[in-house]
């Protein structure tokens, strides 16, 4: 039963109003606007009227098609295919589509076409980034947490140092690493040169489509791991020492103790860390904007970067909003799926 003195409906309303007003104005309304704008052709600044366009933005963003091509066999048995864009550009139904990928099977080629291949590429890049950075960053963080927790002298100092990049601005970190990754002058290539004894070619980390995203992955994990390390540390310290003592009495090796005591004890923490790291990874923007502007050849364009490019820099508010709405649906789904996955694993144990 609530005591009378605590029933303060009007006061509570008064106390809560500033915060709720802020949240409604700058979170709820923009969110509703985002959804509404995707159904229009709103530009940031145009002398022309805004029109409702139905689902056209979504069609343009997400439109996919598979095209089947039959190869032309030459006399020497070599199979060639007509150039994809020559086909799409001369067909009225395929005209808005551009190639995204292709798979050849004997003398038939299946081509995946997209209305907006740059967005699809960005989506793929973002997923690729998450797939690389989440294990790397979480693994590094867990390793650092175990190291800091291993009872070394000066563990506080180690903890502080490993955590320090987290408080630095991502812009600062990206600027420094852009230099470290430089092909001719960068320290990363210098260090690799020393390690390999001057062997091997210099890598143009940010200039090569194959290495640009991995370079951003390395830098991001380096910057962020300290955060997850601290969360793991908190988790480690919550594991009862008795469990370790019992395991030791049973004669368990350090590895066995890690697998049978530490990991189960950390399962909730691991789930939490993986979910927040994944969500953060899908928001990748700053590193790309500072270091590569989405290049080379769209290799580092991400969903968020693309949303800002189209929505703000190309002034196409409606289309940019469509990208962000799709982005939101994506991360919400991911968060729910991951939570389900970890919940089921925990239940099975």
């Amino acid at each position: 039963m609530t005591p009378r003195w605590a029933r303060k409906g009007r006061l509570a309303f008064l106390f809560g109003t500033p915060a709720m007003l802020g949240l409604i104005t700058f979170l709820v309304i923009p969110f509703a606007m985002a959804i509404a704008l995707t159904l229009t052709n709103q530009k940031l600044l145009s002398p022309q009227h805004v029109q409702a366009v139905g689902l056209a933005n979504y069609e343009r963003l997400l439109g996919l098609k598979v095209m089947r091509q039959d190869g032309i066999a030459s006399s020497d048995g070599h199979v060639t295919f007509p150039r994809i864009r020559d086909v799409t550009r001369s067909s009225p139904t395929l005209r808005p589509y551009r190639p995204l990928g292709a798979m050849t099977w004997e003398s038939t080629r299946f081509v995946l076409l997209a209305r907006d291949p740059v967005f699809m590429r960005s989506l793929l890049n973002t997923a690729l980034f998450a797939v690389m950075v989440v294990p790397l960053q979480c693994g590094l963080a867990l390793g650092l947490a175990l190291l800091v927790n291993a009872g070394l002298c000066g563990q506080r100092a180690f903890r502080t140092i490993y955590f320090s990049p987290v408080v630095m601005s991502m812009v600062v970190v990206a600027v420094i690493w852009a230099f470290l990754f430089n092909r001719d002058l960068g320290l990363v290539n210098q260090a690799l040169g020393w390690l390999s004894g001057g062997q091997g070619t210099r890598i143009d980390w940010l200039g090569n489509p194959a290495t640009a995203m991995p370079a951003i992955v390395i830098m991001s994990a380096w910057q962020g791991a300290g955060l997850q390390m601290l969360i793991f540390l908190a988790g480690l310290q919550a594991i009862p020492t008795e469990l370790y003592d019992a395991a030791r009495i049973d004669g368990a090796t350090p590895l066995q103790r890690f697998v049978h005591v530490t990991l189960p004890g950390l399962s909730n923490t691991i789930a939490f860390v993986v979910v927040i790291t994944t969500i953060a990874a899908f928001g990748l923007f700053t590193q790309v904007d500072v270091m590569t502007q989405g290049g080379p050849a769209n290799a580092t364009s991400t969903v968020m970067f693309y949303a800002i490019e189209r929505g703000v820099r190309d002034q196409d508010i409606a289309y940019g909003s469509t990208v962000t709405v799709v982005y939101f649906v994506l991360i919400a789904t991911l968060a729910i799926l991951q939570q389900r996955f970890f919940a089921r694993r925990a239940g099975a144990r």
Partner: protein
Amino acid sequence: MRRILRLSIGTLLASTASCTDKPGAGGRVLHVWQHQTGPEEAAANQQMIARFAAGRHNFVVNAQTIPQGSYPQSIMAAAMAGRLPCVLTVDSPMVPAFVWAGHIRPLDTLIDRQAFASIAPPALGQYQGHIYSVGQFDAALAIFTRRSTLAQIHARIPTLAQPWTRAEFDDVLRKLKATGRWQVPLDLGTREPNPNWWTYAYSPMLQSFGGDLIDRKTNRTADGVINGAPARAWAAWFHALFANEWARRLEPDDQSLMRGRVALAYTGNWRAPDLEKAFGNDLLILPPPDFGHGVAIGGGSWQWAVSSTCTQPAQAAAFIRHLISTPEIAAMATAAGMIPATEAAAQRTQRFRKGGDWRVFYDMSRAFARPRPATPAFTAISNAWYHAARDIMDGTDPRDALDDAADAIDQSIADNNGYAPAAEKTK
């Protein structure tokens, strides 16, 4: 409680608002915005404005400098808020877009057209039969190198009348690379991340190959032009520069020639003073190569315009008349090394008069300058070209990259109903 809240929000509002004393409202202040430039040009502008203000006591000039990187966004933000300044600088290819968006008004309704008669065409921003902007100068891109460098490989020194052909240029690059003195022989300026620079610097090369960005007769489609056969030839050549390591995609700074990292640099006349200081007589300023359809360089630089919301058009007009007077054009050319917009002004300068050592820029500007497409779609064209050229540099199939550019431009034109003027917006 409520009072505390209102007070704190009030002070917050006031403290932030008080520092946004932006132009817009009337009064006796003429607001002028200019993009950020090099120190010499900025100083010359300041003096020009001071000389204008000196003779006038009924109003003051408030001049602000906006960083070039975000200048278009700043103009857009100001336009959305209805607080554009009276007078502003504008990059000449952006003029049609500004007209279309309703930012600026025709100058020839404020000032007699006769006043612009002696101004060279690249320094005038014209659209739909009106003059909307005027510049004191033009700029010109050239190949900078050293006499001793060319002597080393026994290369011919090209002239305006007889520039390098494509074969000669490629041969020079090949020989320079072969000396082993330079890891890459050429700096094209590809470190610059600004789409308008890429259009300014590399689309004239496309034109010299016989291609173009868009069908100039209608300005309605790029298909078959930006992705035509000449454009593909340009793309193959451009890609090879990087594939052969004749040029670096990203120089660590813009001092490549100065510091001896490259043998040739493709850059603008604004770099001439520094390079001349470093190399003296050894410096060579050469026309870009002729790739088959004549030498082409970008025409049109930053110019001055009057906003449509300006409440003091008479003062704005006086300001424009002041800055295109012969002494002012000459003063800018002398102070900042920019190419004067009139012959009369050129004759008043040491360096650009006939026989002057920078006359080559003046002659190149007159002989080779080509305007960029005069359409509000320019931003879309520029972005599409930038992405295509970057992708080609980075190894994307040139035909695919150029087809993508054509599609992006045509899409943008369709999305904006052909960039029809506001008056005929309904279909």
